[in-house]
C-alpha cells in the first residue's frame, strides 16, 4: 500500500521538476541545463526574504518567483539568443550559466545543511496504516493543480496557444506573426517560474543544498527523454513511470539502485524508441 502512496508522491515531484524543462525545450528547442540552478536559487532567495527581511511566507514566495522569472528571461534575452541554432554551444552555455549561479550561491553563503523552508502544514495522518504527513499530500494536490493549470493555460489562452504553435513548428508560427524570440523569452520565464514552484513545493521536505541542483537536472532530463523531448503529456506520463519504477526498486531490490534506474531508463528508451513515448522528432527524420 505504501508503495502506491510514496510512488505517487515521487512521481508527482518528478513531474514538477521536469515540467519546466520540457516547456522550454518544447517551445524553443533549447535544452535549458540551467534548470537545476533556477530551482535552487528560488529556494535560497525565498529563505533569504523570509529570514533576513522577515517578509511573510506567501509574499516571499511571490517575490522570489517574480525574480526568477526575470532571471530566466534575462538569461535568454542577453545570452542564449546570440547562440540560437548551434546545438552544442547552447548546451554548454546554459550549463555554464547554471554552474555560475550554483557556485555563486555556494560562495554567497549557501553552505552546509542549515537552511530549510517551513512546511506548509504540520502533522501527519494515517491512511490505511501508512502515515503520510500533510505536506506530502499537499505535494500531490499542488502537483495536480500545476499540471492542470499548465494544460489549461496552454490549450485555452491566446498566449498558451502561441507557445504551443511555436513548439510544433517555429517557421509556421513565424509566418502567423508570432515573434519567436519574444515567445522564447516568455517560455524561459515561464519555465523558470515552473522550476520555482517545484522548488517551493518540494524544498520544505528536505533542505536547501546546492547538490539538489544537479540532482534535479538529471531527473528532469531523464523524464523528458523517456517522455519524448518536447511533448508535455509524454513528460508527465514518463514522470509516473520512472517515479513508480524507482519506488519499486527501492522496495524490492534495495535503495542504492534507485539512481541507476533513472539512468537505465534513459539509455533503454533512447535505444529502443529514440523519440520517446510521444516525441515526434524521430518519425519525421526517418521519412526519406
Amino acid at each position, binding site marked *: 500500500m505504501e508503495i502506491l502512496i510514496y510512488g505517487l508522491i515521487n512521481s508527482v515531484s518528478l513531474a514538477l521538476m521536469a515540467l519546466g524543462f520540457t516547456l522550454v525545450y518544447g517551445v524553443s528547442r533549447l535544452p535549458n541545463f540551467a534548470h537545476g540552478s533556477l530551482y535552487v536559487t528560488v529556494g535560497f532567495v525565498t529563505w533569504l526574504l523570509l529570514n533576513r527581511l522577515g517578509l511573510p511566507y506567501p509574499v516571499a514566495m511571490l517575490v522570489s518567483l517574480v525574480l526568477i522569472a526575470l532571471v530566466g528571461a534575462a538569461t535568454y534575452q542577453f545570452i542564449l539568443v546570440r547562440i540560437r541554432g548551434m546545438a552544442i554551444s547552447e548546451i554548454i552555455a546554459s550549463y555554464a550559466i547554471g554552474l555560475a549561479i550554483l557556485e555563486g550561491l555556494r560562495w554567497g553563503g549557501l553552505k552546509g*545543511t542549515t*537552511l530549510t523552508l517551513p512546511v506548509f502544514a504540520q502533522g*501527519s495522518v494515517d491512511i490505511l496504516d501508512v502515515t503520510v*504527513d500533510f*505536506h506530502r499530500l499537499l505535494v500531490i494536490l499542488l502537483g495536480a493543480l500545476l499540471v492542470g493549470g499548465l494544460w489549461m493555460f496552454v490549450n485555452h489562452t491566446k498566449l498558451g496557444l502561441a507557445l504551443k504553435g511555436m513548439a510544433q513548428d517555429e517557421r509556421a508560427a513565424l509566418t502567423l506573426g508570432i515573434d519567436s524570440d519574444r515567445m522564447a523569452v516568455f517560455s524561459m520565464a515561464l519555465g523558470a517560474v515552473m522550476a520555482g514552484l517545484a522548488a517551493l513545493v518540494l524544498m520544505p521536505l528536505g*533542505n536547501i543544498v546546492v*547538490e539538489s541542483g544537479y540532482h534535479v537536472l538529471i531527473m528532469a532530463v531523464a523524464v523528458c527523454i523517456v517522455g519524448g523531448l518536447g511533448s508535455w503529456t509524454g513528460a508527465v506520463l514518463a514522470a509516473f513511470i520512472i517515479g513508480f519504477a524507482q519506488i519499486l526498486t527501492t522496495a524490492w531490490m534495495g*535503495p*542504492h539502485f534507485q*539512481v541507476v534506474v533513472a539512468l537505465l531508463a534513459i539509455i533503454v528508451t533512447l535505444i529502443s524508441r529514440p523519440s520517446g513515448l510521444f516525441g515526434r522528432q524521430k518519425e519525421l527524420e526517418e521519412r526519406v
Partner: protein
Amino acid sequence: MKKLLARLSLLPVLAACLLWLAPMLAATSAQAAQPIVLGCPLSTAFLYGWDAERGIKLAVSEINAAGGVKVGNEKRPFSVEVIDTRDLEPGVPVSEALLGVEKLLLEKKADFIVGGPVRSEAALAAMPLIAKAKKISILTSGSLTPKYGDTVAQNPDQFKYLFRISGEAKWMVSGEIIPCLEQIGKKYNLDKMAIMVQDVAHARAGGGIIAKVMADKGWKVLPLEVYPTGATDFSLGLSKAKSAKAQVILIWMDMPETSILLKQWHDMKIPALPFGSIISAAEQPSFWAATEGKGEFCLANVVNAGNAPSQATPWTMFVEAYQKMWGVEPEGYGASSSYMAVYTLKDAIERAGSMDSDKLVEAMKATDLMGVYGRVKFDPKTHQVIPSLDPQEGAVGTIFQWQAGKRVVVFPPKIATGEILLPPWMKDAK
C-alpha cells in the same frame, strides 16, 4: 605584412607566457622570520572542510600570539595556506584534489600537510604523493577508513611521514558505538535494530560490522538499507522499520540529506531511537534550526570529544576560544582534531629541535600530549592516534544527544553530562 605576422603570431604565444608568468606572481611574497608553512588541502565548501580550517587557524593564532615555535634556538611563527580541493563535491575528479596538494607542496612550499584531503578516496590517493615529497602529513578530518592506517603499517618506510589524529572506523565501532548501544539496550531493554547507511564503502563496511556484532549479542537486526548519495526520500525504509517494530535506527550517512531522514522520522512518529554513528548533518549546532526541532533525541557520534561542549579534559577552553573567534560552537568533528594536530606538530618540532622530516617522525612517534579530547599518543605501526574510553589513557570519542536544543554528551560515562532520553511517543509504544 611583417608587423601583422608578428602581432598575430602573438596569439598562441600569449597562452604560453600566461603560463610562464603566473607562477612568478604567486611565489614573490617574501616574509620576515621564515614562517613554517602549514598546507591545508580541505574541501572548504563543506562542513568537514571549513570546521577543520577554523580549528587550524584558531590553533595557529594562539601559538603565534604566544611567540611561535622554538626550532632549535630560533622562534618561527606558523603560517596557514588553505587550498579548496572540492573533493567532497560529487562530479569532481580526485585529480583536482591531488593537483591542490601538489600546488601546496611545490608552489606554496608547505613544510607540513595538515587536515589532508577530506574524502577517504582522495586521502588514500594523496598518500603516495605526500610520501614522495617527504613531508609530514597529519590527517584530521573526514576520512575514517581503517585502510589509511593499514597502508601505513604495510609499507612503513614509504609512508612513515603520514599520521592521523582523528579516530578511525574500527575503534569507533568496537570501542564506542557497540558499548553505547549495549548501555541503551540494558537501560530501556531494547533489542531490535534497523540500520540505514549511505552507499559509500566506509558506511557499508561500518554498518555491516555493527549488524554482525549486535546480532552476536542477541539483538534482532533488520537487513541493511543502503541509500545512494543524494537520496531524498526515506519514507519507505522508515515505514519498514516501523512495521518490523525496530527500537533503534542506526544511521551511517555523511550527506546533508540526513536532516530529511530525521524530519520524516519525526513526522511519521516512528517509535525508534535514531542513533547516528556517522551523521554529519546532526553534528552542527545549526542542525536544530534546520530541522525546526524535529531532530530532538537524535544521538550523534563525534569522533573526538571537545567538539560538543564537554568537560573531557582540563583543556576545555578550546570550546570557548572557538566560540569567541568564530561566533559559533565547534561544529563538525574536524575542529578539535585539527586544533590538536597543530599543537602536536608544535610539540614534536620543539622536541626534535629541527625541521628535518626523519627526526620529526621519531619525535611524532614519541608524542605524549594531554590534548582537548584526552591523551594524544600515536601507535608506532599504523601512526594512528591511540583511542580509549578514559581521557587519561587516550583520545576519547563522544556521543551526544540533542535534548531541547542543546547537545548533551551522553557517552562515554566518564565525561557524560546527561542521560540518554527516549522520544515521548516511544514510551507508550513499548
